[in-house]
């Protein structure tokens, strides 16, 4: 196998653009740098451009403009090196449904000129969970097992960079937690992980993240820094009269935006224009009971909402 030198960036994109048909601009002039040995999350909803970015980086499609390097190799001129040294798990299950679990794994090992035995250590903890079903056809596996097989196949040649396109979409909260635990262990093995997700709560499990919407990055930083840079004051508000709360809050000029957030409601306040006490007084006059108004630190989801609002205003 052609090994590549350790480079400064696991991924580096400059002014990358991709347009499908005349009117759908999937990526708009984006820049991105991902340091090695970390879990880097691309966070955004369906249609934001996550898959397009990954297909360019995995050398499956070409960008219209701009440059991209993966582990120091150019995605256009050095695609063969990249293909040998990355592991890729696409969003849609794309293993051979009519091959068994073991046959799939053997096949991917042989494509990369290796064997299951040679790299068993790396996949052991994941593959062991599906090994009892190694003679079952991949098409007959449950969703969770398919996911583990796909991850095993993506890892069988010990890639330096693992690219995972929405591995947890449609997966329940318990299984999602387990999957992220596997990713954390793989990072310990020295593998760089580039992962996309539409679940905002997974942002805090990444070392660094890029928030993406409509083909543009809203922000690239660590989750901690993104949360720290949130500008407006944020209140968490609870009231027994929940459905009325949004209407009453939206009637106040000092409130910039407000949305339900689990069991409470989050409201952003422009330039501290209303204190928690004053807001509480206003709401109780409107007939709200069991009121609670507390200033809180934002989550990444609050940040995403605020940044996307700003983007649409510009």
């Amino acid at each position, binding site marked *: 196998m052609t090994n590549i030198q350790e480079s400064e960036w696991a991924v580096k994109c400059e002014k990358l653009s991709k347009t499908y048909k005349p009117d759908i601009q999937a990526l708009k002039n984006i820049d991105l740098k991902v340091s090695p040995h970390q879990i880097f999350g691309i966070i955004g909803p369906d249609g934001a451009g996550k898959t397009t970015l990954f297909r360019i980086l995995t050398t499956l499609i070409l960008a219209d403009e701009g440059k991209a390097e993966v582990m120091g190799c150019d995605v256009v001129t050095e695609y063969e090196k990249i293909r040998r040294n990355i592991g890729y798990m696409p969003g849609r299950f794309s293993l051979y449904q009519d091959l068994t679990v073991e046959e799939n794994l053997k096949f991917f090992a042989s494509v990369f000129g290796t064997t299951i035995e040679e790299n068993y250590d790396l996949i052991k903890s994941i593959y062991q969970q599906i090994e009892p079903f190694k003679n079952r056809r991949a098409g007959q596996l449950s969703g*969770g*097992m398919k996911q583990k097989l796909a991850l095993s196949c993506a890892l069988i040649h010990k890639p330096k960079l693992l690219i995972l396109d929405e591995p947890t979409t449609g997966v329940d909260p318990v299984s999602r937690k387990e999957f992220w635990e596997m990713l954390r262990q793989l990072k310990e093995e020295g593998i760089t992980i580039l992962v996309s997700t539409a679940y*905002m709560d997974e942002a805090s499990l990444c070392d660094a993240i890029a928030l993406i919407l409509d083909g543009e990055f809203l922000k690239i930083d660590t989750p901690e820094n993104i949360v720290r840079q949130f500008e407006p004051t944020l209140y968490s508000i609870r009231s027994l009269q929940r459905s009325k709360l949004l209407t009453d809050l939206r009637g106040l000029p000092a409130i910039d935006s407000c949305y339900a957030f689990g*069991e409470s409601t989050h409201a952003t306040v422009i330039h501290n224009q209303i204190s928690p006490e004053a807001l509480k007084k206003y709401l109780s006059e409107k007939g709200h009971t069991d009121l609670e108004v507390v200033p809180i630190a934002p989550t990444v989801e609050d940040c995403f909402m605020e940044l996307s609002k700003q983007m649409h205003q510009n």
Partner: protein
Amino acid sequence: MENVIEVNNLTKKFGSFTAVDHISFEVKQGEIFGFLGANGAGKTTAMRMLCGLLPSTSGKGLVAGYDINTQSEQVKRNIGYMSQKFALYEDLKVWENIRLYGGIYGVPEPQIVSKTNDLLKRLGFENERNTLVNSLPLGWKQKLAFSVAIFHEPKIVFLDEPTGGVDPITRRKFWELIYEATDRGITVFVTTHYMDEAEYCDRVSMMVDGHIEALDTPKNLKQMFHADTMNEVFQKLARKAQRSDS
């Protein structure tokens, strides 16, 4: 208050495998009922039976007043259904989608015309009547998909992960639509993997290994399981599962 769903010992076996194992519950009119569970717990199978798409092995179920085993056609006609994956025909215009679903649900032709006008007006979509659905922004598509699912004024609408992969603001605006619908008396049966959305339901059931392991208001469930959030409740309950999907 009238029950829109009444389920008694509903069971579905596939060979020796019991996918849904004697579940019993009611859903009241105007309620938002959250139907949660881990992958592989039996949610989809249960939902398919409730929608009249799959006969049960044993047990009884009444949905919108019809027996799911003996009157499945009437069940299908009297419910609404929407999922994120399959909601609208992207290559049909806005009015064509409404016309198609109105027809499928048996709304008489003259009514479709007048109701389409009302709907477009209420949504502020009058100028989009002839727009292809694939060129609408996601938030508008969701609004339209939901409106189409309740166009025939069903007693109950089933929402199967309606907000999967949707951006945070659009997702919240969708829940505001749900509240508006329940204010008009429509009952909502919804599945989701977003645990903050479980908090927006009036009552939530948690399926584990084919059983309904817990069913109550989010507030009571959190008290019962000494949890601060519905996510914690879910983690505690689903971890007990023997029959995990993995």
